[in-house]
């Protein structure tokens, strides 16, 4: 990249910079005129200069020039103007003034938008280039890179550049010329005074930059500190578990405070220096008029200077400081952005960057299959500390062989896995995969023909299905059917070109059906299901689907089928053996297995308004209770519960296992409830404080008779609650309408999961195996109604969360494995993945994958290179490589290595 910001700007926006300068100069006469005109208005028509007699007229818009007499004697009149009387002349001048205001405004508008646009475009280019470099960094480089630092650099540190770029050339040109004109005028009026002004200005331009040098150093330090700070914050967030388990929160606090302090002191020093320079600047600016008054006054008194001249000089000088100040500000900004720029790009310069060609989409998007064998000769890998990870490894394998590599951690087995997938570059020797040397194989070949599953599979935030299909997205294949945003695509492309960005369309269809060995979206769906079955993720995803929600308007058929399943399940629940297992929701009946609060609201809370934690303090709910005369009764019920709990638990030590079974409150809350009980004892309900009411209502709202068995429910109370339920629903104010989705026997409940919609009730407490039996029955119903696949599809849309954290590590690894198989590679490298599986499950998984790799359904046989954690499992492979201390020490068929003196047997133990 260009080492200097100005070169960078010029290289990418020379024409635009030139244009903006032209426009700025074109606007100048109008600006000067608009300064001039008010003077004319006041002097002419208003004060009457030139209108000595009532009939006198003036020429409006007269264009004339009196050249120096050596060129032409007299006046050149280009346009004699309109002859006007005093009043019309005033009107004409004022209208001209208004016109100028408009013209100047429009110029400013145009210039500002234009500057904004080139700035933003350049920023886009720069950010894109930086990101592009990140994508081309050699993998090893990432050991030294902190993600939040890169993010800060690309996002924040280059931001001020955008504002500056528009001003980079035009502003200094414009302001400098203004200053020059003012200065020239002064010089023309009086050489002496002009000389003084010139000397001071020269002094300013010489001294100030010198003073700024120290500023530069400080600014650099500040930028580095700020960047390191965001790196640290990122580390703390990523390693938060470590911080907690080591009780180092205070250590981290101290570290952060120290860094913030350092930034503070750097900034403080910066301010001191910056404002001192400003002070000096202002002083010098004011020093000139002081000299004018003193020197000019002296000459005027002596009679050698015309007073009119002096006044003209001082007036002209008034115009000088503002452009000078602008120039100085510009210079300040220039320094700032130049430092930022060089500090940023420095971080993006590294050796061995991947050549752009290697990552480009191949001609016709065609990648030929790998053929031949894996040939590793004398390969050594040394890491950046000089440690030898692998030494002189030499072996040959047919590409389609199913081979395993075993060895202890850091034995070199995992390194050779990385080498074959192009993730680690050999520092010695040569590794050949099929037709290619891994060091210069195009990314398209390694990324499509070789699949890799590492120890950890990182998933960006996306749905499960997007994560699985990620390995098929190499190039845009069909343009999107409709534009997803409102900017026309042609405009997007044109603008991307101007900023040197990629013009590939993210909204296009990137999914390569052919690579997955299918022809249509339907077939792909089937294939995805198959691979997820192989990695035993299908049931997990089905369960995610059951727990997922759908938008019934978006998927009316599914919602309808779910309703059918609900009816079907309900019928089955009427008969033995499932009878009594579920209490279905019925708006005319009290649901004994649901909390009292749920019975009142009879719906699913959406958002916080009616959420469990807030229900007992919600004004509308309290109002409804009051109207249905339940408030006092439920309050007393809450008191009863609190008393029972206080009585039963009060003298237990806090760690007593009984507390685990206490659902109403935590052990820490008991003293608080005791206080509430004392406060409310014998107090008339009308006088009880609102927060005490809420605290106690919370207890009665959580009450479930079959679970808590305190015998607090009566038929009468249930009837009252049903009435309140009705009232709550009928009178729900408009602003709360979105806060609850009511249970309706006939309608799909959007806020509830598929499972809850099918069940539409609560599983009874105290029925042995209740939830499990109901779960089985739901699965049966879904299978019979042929809904399993639809639920599975809902599960596929489950969002995996940042870094896939909503899935567990094993599920993430399995997705990695599924994704690898889905792209039908020629070689699949599995590098110590799935090690959390026990031997039996791991072996089962290996066999399932091996079946796919042997051709399975698709008929495409591919090679496996499986780096195993557990050497015992090597018996499943055709060929085994044994690594020890970075060297290949043994290889052959597992049977041949079964002897008791083999290294393999030693590893199996």
């Amino acid at each position, binding site marked *: 990249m260009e080492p200097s910001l100005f070169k960078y700007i010029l290289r990418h926006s020379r024409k635009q910079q030139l244009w903006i300068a032209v426009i700025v100069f074109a606007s100048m006469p109008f600006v000067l005129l608009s300064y001039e005109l008010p003077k004319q208005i006041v002097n002419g028509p208003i004060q009457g200069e030139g209108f000595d007699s009532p009939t006198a007229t003036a020429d409006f818009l007269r264009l004339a020039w009196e050249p120096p007499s050596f060129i032409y004697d007299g006046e050149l009149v280009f346009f004699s103007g309109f002859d006007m009387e005093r009043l019309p002349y005033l009107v004409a001048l004022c209208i001209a003034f208004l016109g100028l205001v408009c013209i100047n405004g429009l110029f400013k508008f145009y210039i500002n938008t234009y500057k904004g646009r080139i700035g933003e475009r350049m920023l886009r280019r720069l950010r894109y280039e930086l990101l592009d470099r990140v994508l081309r960094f050699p993998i090893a480089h990432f050991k030294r890179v902190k993600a939040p630092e890169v993010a800060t650099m690309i996002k924040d540190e280059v931001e001020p550049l955008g504002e500056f770029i528009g001003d980079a050339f035009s502003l200094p040109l414009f302001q400098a010329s203004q200053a020059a004109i003012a200065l020239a005028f002064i010089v023309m009026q009086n050489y002496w005074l002009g000389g003084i002004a010139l000397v001071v200005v020269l002094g300013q331009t010489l001294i100030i930059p010198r003073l700024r040098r120290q500023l530069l150093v400080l600014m650099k330090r500040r930028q580095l500190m700020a960047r390191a700070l965001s790196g640290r914050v990122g580390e703390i967030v990523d390693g938060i578990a470590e911080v907690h388990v080591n009780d180092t929160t205070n250590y981290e606090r101290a570290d952060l405070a120290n860094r913030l302090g350092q930034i503070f002191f750097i900034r403080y020093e910066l301010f001191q220096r910056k404002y001192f320079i400003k002070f000096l600047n202002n002083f010098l600016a004011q020093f000139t008029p002081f000299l004018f008054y003193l020197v000019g006054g002296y000459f005027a008194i002596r009679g050698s200077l015309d007073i009119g001249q002096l006044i003209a000089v001082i007036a002209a000088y008034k115009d000088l400081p503002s452009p000078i100040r602008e120039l100085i500000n510009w210079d300040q900004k220039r320094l700032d952005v130049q430092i930022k720029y060089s500090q940023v790009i420095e971080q993006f310069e590294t050796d061995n960057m991947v050549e752009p060609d290697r990552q480009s989409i191949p001609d016709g998007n065609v990648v030929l299959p790998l053929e031949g064998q894996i040939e590793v000769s004398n390969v050594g890998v040394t890491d950046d500390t000089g440690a030898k990870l692998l030494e002189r490894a030499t072996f040959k394998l047919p590409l389609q062989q199913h081979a395993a590599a075993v060895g202890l951690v850091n034995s070199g087995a995992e390194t050779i896995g990385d080498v074959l997938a192009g993730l680690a570059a050999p520092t010695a020797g040569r590794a050949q995969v099929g037709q290619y040397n891994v060091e210069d194989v195009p990314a398209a070949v390694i990324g499509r023909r070789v699949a890799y599953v590492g120890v950890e599979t990182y998933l960006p935030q996306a749905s499960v299905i997007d994560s699985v299909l990620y390995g098929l997205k190499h190039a845009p294949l069909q343009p999107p059917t409709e534009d997803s945003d409102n900017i026309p695509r042609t405009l997007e492309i044109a603008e991307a070109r101007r900023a040197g960005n990629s013009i590939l369309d993210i909204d296009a269809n990137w999914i390569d059906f052919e690579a997955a060995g299918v022809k249509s979206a339907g077939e792909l769906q089937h294939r995805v299901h198959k691979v997820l079955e192989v990695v035993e993720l299908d049931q997990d995803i089905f369960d995610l689907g059951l727990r997922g929600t759908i938008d019934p308007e978006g998927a009316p058929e599914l919602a309808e089928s779910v309703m059918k399943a609900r009816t079907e399940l309900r019928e089955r629940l009427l008969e033995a*053996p499932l009878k009594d297992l579920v209490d279905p929701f019925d708006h005319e009946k009290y649901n004994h297995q649901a909390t009292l609060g749920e019975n009142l609201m009879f719906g699913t809370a959406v958002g916080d308004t009616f959420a469990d934690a807030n229900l007992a303090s919600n004004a509308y709910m309290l109002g409804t209770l009051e109207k249905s005369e339940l408030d006092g009764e439920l309050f007393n019920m809450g008191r009863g519960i609190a008393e*029972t709990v206080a*009585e*039963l*638990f009060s003298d*237990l030590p806090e760690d*007593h*296992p*009984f507390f685990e*079974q*206490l659902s109403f409150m935590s052990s820490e809350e008991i003293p608080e409830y005791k206080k509430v009980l004392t406060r409310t004892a014998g107090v008339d309900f009308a006088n009880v404080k609102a927060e005490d009411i809420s605290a106690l209502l919370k207890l009665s709202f959580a009450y479930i*008779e*079959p679970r*808590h*068995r*305190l*015998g607090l429910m009566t038929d009468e109370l249930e009837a009252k609650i049903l009435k309140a339920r009705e009232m709550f629903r009928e009178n729900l104010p408009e602003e709360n309408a979105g806060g609850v989705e009511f249970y309706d026997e006939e309608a799909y409940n959007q806020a509830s999961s598929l499972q809850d919609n099918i069940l539409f009730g609560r599983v009874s*407490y*105290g*029925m*042995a*195996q209740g939830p499990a039996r109901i779960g089985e029955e739901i699965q049966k119903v879904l299978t019979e109604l042929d809904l399993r696949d639809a639920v599975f599809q809902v599960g596929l849309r489950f969002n995996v969360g940042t870094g896939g954290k909503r899935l567990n590590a094993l599920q993430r690894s399995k997705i990695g494995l599924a994704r690898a198989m889905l792209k039908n590679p020629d070689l699949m490298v599995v590098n110590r993945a799935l090690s959390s599986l026990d031997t039996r499950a791991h072996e089962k998984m290996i066999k399932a994958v091996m079946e796919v790799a042997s051709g399975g359904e698709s008929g495409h046989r591919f090679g496996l290179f499986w780096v195993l954690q557990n050497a015992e499992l090597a018996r499943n492979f055709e060929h085994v490589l044994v690594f020890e201390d970075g060297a290949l020490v043994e290889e052959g068929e597992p049977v041949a290595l079964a002897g008791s003196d083999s290294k393999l047997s030693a590893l199996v133990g």
Partner: protein
Amino acid sequence: MAGLQHEVDLLRRIPLFANVEPAKLKLLAFTSERITYEDGQELFHQGDAGDAAYVIISGSADVIVDTPDGEFRVAHVDKNAFVGEIAILCDVPRTATIKASERVETLKIMKEHFLRMLKEFPEMGIEVMRVLADRLGSTTEELTDAKNKIRELQA
């Protein structure tokens, strides 16, 4: 129906809990789950890890042992019986299977809760010893009988 009070009364009728003060029994009942088993459902199976003991509130159940010749019913328990305590006392897998022979209602007492109660009420510990010793006595008696029978048959 005051379920909890009813359960406390039930617990008091069991010799093991007879000497525990009512407030503690109420606490035990409050923190225990009440679980219903249908005819044929198992409370637990021989060989499973034991995490709880059960008080039978109503109904009855068979105590079954797996033998090489198939399942063998060794006893029948009904209302007020306390079962499953061996596994939680000795930390061994379940020594037998308990299968409901009709609809059975139980109070499931978690292992930690039971052990804690034992610690807090030494009387309960003595009661447990008494019950176990009782059972040992009858088992020894049965064993003697069985041995005699074998000798008779051999003779």
